């Protein structure tokens, strides 16, 4: 059964009557966007929610504990309110039936400065919108919403994306536009189900080359980012430490070792080796690497700056058919694996 309280400018009396006629413990969908409520919230409604502030009814500041008694609420739309302060969500949300039944939650246009921890207990959630709030970051525990398919975080102040976001196995739509994001963690390429990625209007200068691994991606928006169009080679290179050189040798020569042979810290260090992407190299690196940007033709339309890390300045990118000297600054076009991967993308909304 669906209970809808749309933001129609209805007289208070009608709204209260509708509420008592339709209110039911079987309510599955509750839409509450009282931007245009002209008077105080009617008495019937206030049994469900507590409104903060004065009697002008300009928007909810808290959602009341009555929400917790709804046994099978599926959809909750509470956009354009004044939620965001402590106590916006009722205590005990994680234990309520809501935590298992809720599938769609829209809190866009509110004042959340952080994702409320209680929200992460809504384990059945498939769709979450926190667009147009005041978020500065995304909590790593977002990975607990393991049923999430749709995540809208556009229009906030987010500066970074936690790699844990990539642990959401069903995520299909990820919206991060209009934020302050400076880089994309390469782990995001593990989002195997991703169909649509919205990154426009951020502070990206390049993308990780792993983004080409998102084989099911159909839409990608990147406009309004200061993506570099010409790469100026980074000439500083910190030579590797002795520890790094030893680690590289252990790995590339497959020197056998057991946890009992080495201090735990070194065992851990050796497990963090990254493979040099140069297919002719086969080497590894730990902390010391060279950043290089290669421009890859994207579906024959745009050249995207993709960042990858090489183990040394002498190594060359897999995106070039011939190895380059360290003084070369040529920007090679898409070749081999890069262009094949890029062609899998059906629609790029770089715009």
């Amino acid at each position, binding site marked *: 059964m669906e209970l809808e309280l749309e933001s129609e400018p209805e007289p208070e009396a009608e709204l209260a009557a509708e509420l008592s006629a339709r209110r039911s413990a079987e309510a599955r969908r509750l839409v509450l966007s009282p931007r245009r409520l002209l008077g105080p919230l009617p008495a019937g409604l206030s049994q469900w929610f507590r409104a903060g502030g004065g009697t002008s009814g300009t928007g909810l500041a808290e959602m009341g504990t009555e929400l917790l008694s709804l046994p099978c609420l599926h959809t909750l739309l509470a956009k354009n309110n004044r939620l965001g302060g402590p106590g916006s969500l009722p205590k005990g949300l994680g234990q309520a039936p809501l935590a298992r039944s809720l599938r769609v939650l829209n809190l866009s*246009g509110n004042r959340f400065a952080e994702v409320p921890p209680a929200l992460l207990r809504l384990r059945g959630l498939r769709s979450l919108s926190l667009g147009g709030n005041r978020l500065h970051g995304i909590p790593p525990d977002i990975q607990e919403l393991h049923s999430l398919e749709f995540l809208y975080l556009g229009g906030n102040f987010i500066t970074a994306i936690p790699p844990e976001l990539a642990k959401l196995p069903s995520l299909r739509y990820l919206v991060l536009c209009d934020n302050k994001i400076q880089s994309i963690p390469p782990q995001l390429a593990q989002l195997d189900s991703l169909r649509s990625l919205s990154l426009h209007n951020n502070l990206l200068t390049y993308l990780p080359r792993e983004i080409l691994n998102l084989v099911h991606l159909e839409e990608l928006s990147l406009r309004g980012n200061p993506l570099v169009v010409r790469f100026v080679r980074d000439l500083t290179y910190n030579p590797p430490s002795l520890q790094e050189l030893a680690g590289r040798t252990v790995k590339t020569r497959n020197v056998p070792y057991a946890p009992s042979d080495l201090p735990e810290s070194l065992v851990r260090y050796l497990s963090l080796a990254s493979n040099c992407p140069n297919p002719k190299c086969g080497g590894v690196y730990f902390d010391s690497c060279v950043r290089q940007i290669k421009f890859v033709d994207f579906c024959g*339309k745009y050249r995207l700056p993709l960042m990858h890390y090489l183990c040394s300045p002498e190594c060359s990118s897999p995106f070039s058919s011939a190895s380059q000297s360290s003084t070369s600054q040529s920007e090679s076009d898409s070749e081999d694996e890069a262009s094949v991967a890029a062609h899998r993308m059906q629609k790029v909304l770089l715009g």
Partner: protein
Amino acid sequence: TIQTMELSGTEWKEGRKYTRNLVDSGNGKFNLMILCWGEGHGSSIHDHTDSHCFMKILQGNLKETLFEWPEKKMNGEMTKKSERVLRENQCAYINDSIGLHRVENISHTETAVSLHLYSPPFDTCNTFDQRTGHKHKVTMTFYSQFGERTVCVSTG
């Protein structure tokens, strides 16, 4: 006057769809379509293939940014001419001699719906990369036609 056409609601309201829905093909003289814009969704910068284009906002708001045609060399950031936010019931007109534009729903909370009239009809246009002016020809498809969902045909 056009009768109200009901678009299958839930699918596009809760997802993130940018859908083009053909309403009337005017005996080949024009295309009349309804575009549905999800929150944050915008179009590429595009031209209008020598046709007249009228746009009316039916619901929500759309931001229109006008651009100059890029120089032949296509070597730098495209030049913005102007921008404005079109409100509900407002109309806009564009053709290739006026310039190019990008249309976006910049709201993160509201969807938008617009009515578009193109005369003569066209199904291909050029999209432009704002950073370089590089253009790319695309074929436009309809999500639905005359109220019926269009079977998806891959155009590659």
